[in-house]
Each structure stands twice: as structure tokens, then as C-alpha cells.
């Protein structure tokens, strides 16, 4: 039972957020809350490879951006009624665009992962960064889809029976998708697959000696992580009604890593807390001074140098520690 307290509490908070925002008359709170949900999904997908699998990918924002662009491109083709490559029709149905966004970002992750995972250590960090930069520049070069300016999506994707022109409805759709995603992720990290992944992080050679094809497991995890980020990106495109190459800039990948670390590496709820901490910090610091990144930098530096295990680690230590 105790295990259920935190998830139920989190869902309740997020579900009540639109009401709270209306009560205090600050609509920005609902936007902030939605951003936390979507970044939490992206950070959690990164945590699957970074925290559980020990793979330091410095290009995770690329899949986030690819997911967003799938929604944008499908929408622009639906608007112009010109099939993509003359073959596939565009779409504005959320139930169509989300799965396609996941498939496309998963394929991108499969290709990049299959090549990158042949290296390790520093080289792995750099090659994932390099591939992400290539995707970034690829989308900058797509003048047909706005180039550097990106695509404006006039209306959020439709869901039968829902009025998606209402921001609050979109918010609840995001919440439902996020809850489903985290429920699925819970099953993944607690499955035998998740155990193998943790084992690879601790000692890859030993896992290999036990007869496990570690490369394949790492690649699966890499692809699943890419799909998760793609899903989050697709939601983001719907929420912002906009996509641009900025979404996959390398500093965004850095921010995703920061969220994972802030919350606590390799913990289930860490990315949610980390994304919340990061975005709330940004929200209030940016409100207060345009030099908010100075504060962020100092806090981040202190967290890295003097804490072990982020927010959840600090909470554990305060409780007397299970370390």
C-alpha cells in the first residue's frame, strides 16, 4: 500500500492543477504543470538508458524533436492535402499522430543506437551528441517545413468526442497519456528486462559471462527511450501548437540530463521531481531576473558537487538513509 501513496498523490496534484490555477487566477500555472508532465516523460525515458542502463546519451532531445516534427509534418500535409512523398496522407488525429511519432523516433533511435553502442565512454557521449546535432541541422535545412522557423500548428490534433480547442482538455489528455506512460515504464523497469539493464550498468562483462547478449538489451532500451521521448515531443507539439529545431538543440539534451540528475539517477520518480524542480526554478527565477541561468548554474553546480543522488537521495538521507 505504501508504494501507492506517492503515485496517487502525484496524479491528484496534477489532476487538480487546472482548478488551482483558476482559483489563484494564474493560468501560467497550468502551462507550467503541463510542461512538467511532458518533460518528466522525456526525462524518464532518458533515465531508462542513463540511470538504469548507465548509457550517457547526450543527444536525447533529438528524439523529442523528431516526435514533435512528426506531428507538425503530418499536420501541414493534412492542411495542404498533399500526401507525404505522394504516398501517405497527412493527419490531424491524435490517435494516429502519437503512434506514428513513437514509431519514427523509435526508428531514429534504432539507427543511431545501433551505430553509437559500438563505442563506449567518452566516445559514446560524443557520438550521440554528434548524431543529435546532425538531426538538428537536418531539420534546419528542411525549408519545406519552415527551416529554422519551424512549423506552426494552427490547432491541436483532434480526438473524437473531445473539444481539443480547449486548453484544459488538452491538459487532461496529456495527463492521461503521461499516467499511462509511467504505468508502462513501471512495468518495464521492474521486469526481468529492467533487471538485466541494471545488471549491465553495474557490470557489463559479468552479464555477458552469464550468457546475456548485452548489446541487444542496450539497443532495445535505447529504442524504447527514443520512443518515449518522441511521445513526449509529440504531446509538446500539440500543446505549444508549434515545433522548431530549437527543441532538439544540444543544450536541450543537457537540460534533460540535468532533470534526471536533479531528481535522482536511476530512480522511478526522480525524473518527475527533477523536471518539476527544474521547470519551477526556471519559472520563478525567470520571473524575478533575466539572469536566471546564473542561479540555475550555481544550484546545479552545488547539486553535482555536494549531493549524491539528487532530490530523492537527499530525502532518503534525511529519513535516516537506506543507502
Amino acid at each position, binding site marked *: 500500500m505504501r508504494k501507492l501513496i506517492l503515485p496517487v498523490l502525484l496524479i491528484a496534484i496534477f489532476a487538480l492543477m487546472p482548478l488551482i490555477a483558476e482559483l489563484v487566477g494564474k493560468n501560467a500555472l497550468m502551462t507550467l504543470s503541463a510542461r512538467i508532465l511532458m518533460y518528466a516523460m522525456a526525462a524518464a525515458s532518458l533515465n531508462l538508458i542513463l540511470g538504469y542502463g548507465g548509457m550517457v546519451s547526450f543527444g536525447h532531445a533529438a528524439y523529442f524533436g523528431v516526435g514533435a516534427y512528426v506531428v507538425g509534418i503530418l499536420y501541414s500535409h493534412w492542411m495542404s492535402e498533399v500526401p507525404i512523398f505522394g504516398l501517405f496522407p497527412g493527419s490531424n488525429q491524435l490517435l494516429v499522430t502519437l503512434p506514428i511519432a513513437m514509431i519514427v523516433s523509435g526508428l531514429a533511435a534504432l539507427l543511431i543506437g545501433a551505430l553509437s553502442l559500438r563505442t563506449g565512454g567518452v566516445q559514446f557521449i560524443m557520438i550521440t551528441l554528434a548524431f543529435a546535432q546532425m538531426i538538428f541541422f537536418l531539420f534546419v535545412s528542411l525549408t519545406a517545413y519552415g527551416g529554422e522557423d519551424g512549423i506552426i500548428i494552427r490547432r491541436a490534433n483532434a480526438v473524437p468526442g473531445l473539444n481539443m480547442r480547449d486548453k484544459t482538455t488538452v491538459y487532461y489528455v496529456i495527463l492521461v497519456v503521461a499516467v499511462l506512460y509511467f504505468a508502462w515504464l513501471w512495468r518495464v523497469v521492474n521486469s526481468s528486462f529492467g533487471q538485466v539493464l541494471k545488471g549491465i550498468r553495474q557490470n557489463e562483462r559479468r552479464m555477458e559471462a552469464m550468457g546475456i547478449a548485452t548489446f541487444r538489451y542496450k539497443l532495445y532500451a535505447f529504442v524504447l527511450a527514443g520512443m518515449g521521448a518522441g511521445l513526449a515531443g509529440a504531446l509538446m507539439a500539440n500543446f505549444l501548437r508549434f515545433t522548431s529545431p530549437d527543441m532538439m538543440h544540444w543544450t536541450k539534451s543537457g537540460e534533460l*540530463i540535468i532533470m534526471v540528475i536533479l531528481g535522482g539517477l536511476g530512480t522511478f520518480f526522480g525524473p518527475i521531481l527533477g523536471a518539476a524542480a527544474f521547470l519551477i526554478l526556471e519559472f520563478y527565477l525567470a520571473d524575478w531576473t533575466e539572469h536566471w541561468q546564473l542561479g540555475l548554474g550555481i544550484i546545479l553546480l552545488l547539486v553535482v*558537487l555536494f549531493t549524491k543522488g539528487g532530490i530523492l537521495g537527499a530525502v532518503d538521507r534525511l529519513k535516516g538513509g537506506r543507502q
Partner: protein
Amino acid sequence: MILILEQLLNGLQYGVMLFLLAAGLTLIFGIMGVINLAHGSLYMIGAFAGTWVATTTGSFWLGIPAGLIAAALVGFLVEATVIRKLYARDHLDQVLATFALILIFNQMIILIFGRQPIFTPLPEVFYGSIEIIPGLFYPPYRLLIIAVGLLVAVGLYFLINRTRVGMLVRAGSTNRDMVRALGVDVRLLYTVVFGLGALLAGLAGYMTGPILAVQVGMGEDILLATFVVVVIGGVGSIKGAFVAGIGLGVVDTMLRAFLPTILRGFMAPSDADAIGASVSSMGIFLLMAIVLLIRPKGLFAAGG
């Protein structure tokens, strides 16, 4: 032909700048085992400090020691307060802590100098252009950069291969633990290496000032290219940094100069320019991916 030669020289000039940055970074990487994303910040600090002194005193030459000293001082400070704590940490912590340093330095520069780019005054000697070979006019300042870069390369070669410090550096990048076990004061060695890296970054920053704008974010733009150079050249190898730096500088410049023109041959000019520009930006990353897939440790990896 003249055009190609001119772009080759531009590539060489960009290449030696990349080398100045990559030489420090590859040593810090190879000897101390630290990924220093803030290396670009030292480059930026050198540029700002040097340019500030140059504009206040009106002398371009006084800016050089100013940029070098500022970058080295900040380098020592950063090494003593932050980097020293990161030696024993994993790469992830290093990436994050130095990423935090980028944010801090960028904002501090904005607080001091503002967001507007500032310009480095050039002495009159460098105005105009000189004819190197018949028909090829080239700005002398770019020639100066190439000369300085090559001089530093020669100097580093002697420092690394002919002096006692250089011997320790070479030993350190081959087998760090063995050097420590032999009773060498590694801490001092680390500080020296980091300071040297910072010095070179500051020099590169100040020298590029008159060509590119001195502004916040200039460090990040060149940082990624520098990392590509380090990784392609092989971590810890000065020789690798030199070869890869010049090579990438030339390839990148050539792509930027000629790809759009080539593409114009078979598509609309506006598309050709946009696609050409971004495909050229992809070029160095593509090259790195290819090199890493064939030689996962880079071209001239030091030690095991």
C-alpha cells in the same frame, strides 16, 4: 583556382584555431580524465578580457597578455574549486558540473559586458590585403593567426617531446595511475596542464576576436567543433589534435564555401543556400561518426 586557394587558407586559419582549443582540451581529457565543457567559456573569457583591455588602452598588442592572463587565472580558479573535485567522479558528473559553469560564465559576461557583441580594434598594419601569389589577395591578419597557430604547434611539440614536464604529460596521457605510483606530484601536473589549456583557449579567443564577433555564446559555437576534433584525433594526443584540427577546419570551410554553389546547379537558389549551409554544418559530425565507427578510439589515441 585562386578561390580554392583562398578558401584553403581560410580553412587553415580556422583549423589552427581549432587546434589551439583542442590541444588543451585533449590534454585535460587524456591526462586528467575530465570532460571540460567549460573550455569554450575560457575561450570566451580570453576574448572579452583581451578586447576590453585593447579598447581601453587602444593597443591591440596589450590585449594579448590580458586575454592570456585572464583565461589562465580563471582556469586556475576553476581547476582549484570545481575540476579538482571531479577527477574521481564519472563522466556524467563532469558533463553536468562543467555545463553549469557554462551557464554561470555566460551570465556573468552578460552582467559585465551586456548582450551586444563587442569588436576588437585592429592595428593599421593589418588593414587591406597583401598579394601572396599573383592574383591572390589575402588579409594579413588571417596570415598572422595561421603563423601564431603554427608557432604554438611547434612550441608544443618541443614542450611535449623535449622537456621534463612534457615527458610527464606524455606519461600521464598513456598511463595516469602509473605516473602517480612513481611518485610524481600529479596534482601539480594537473594544475599545470589545465592552466596551459586555459592559456591556449584564451589565446584562440582573443585572436579570433577581430574576425568573428566577441559575444556571449561564442564559446559554445566552437566547443562542439573542438570536441569533434579531440574525439577524431584521439583523446590525449596533441598530434591527433593538430591533424584533425587542420583537417576539419579545411573540410568545414570548403563545404561551407562550395556546397551551396554546387547545389545551385540542380535546385532553387534559396533552397540550395539553406540546405548547403546546414549540410555543411552536419559535415564535421558525419566525419566524426564515420571515424568512430572505423576507429572507436580516434585516429591517434594515446595509450590504452
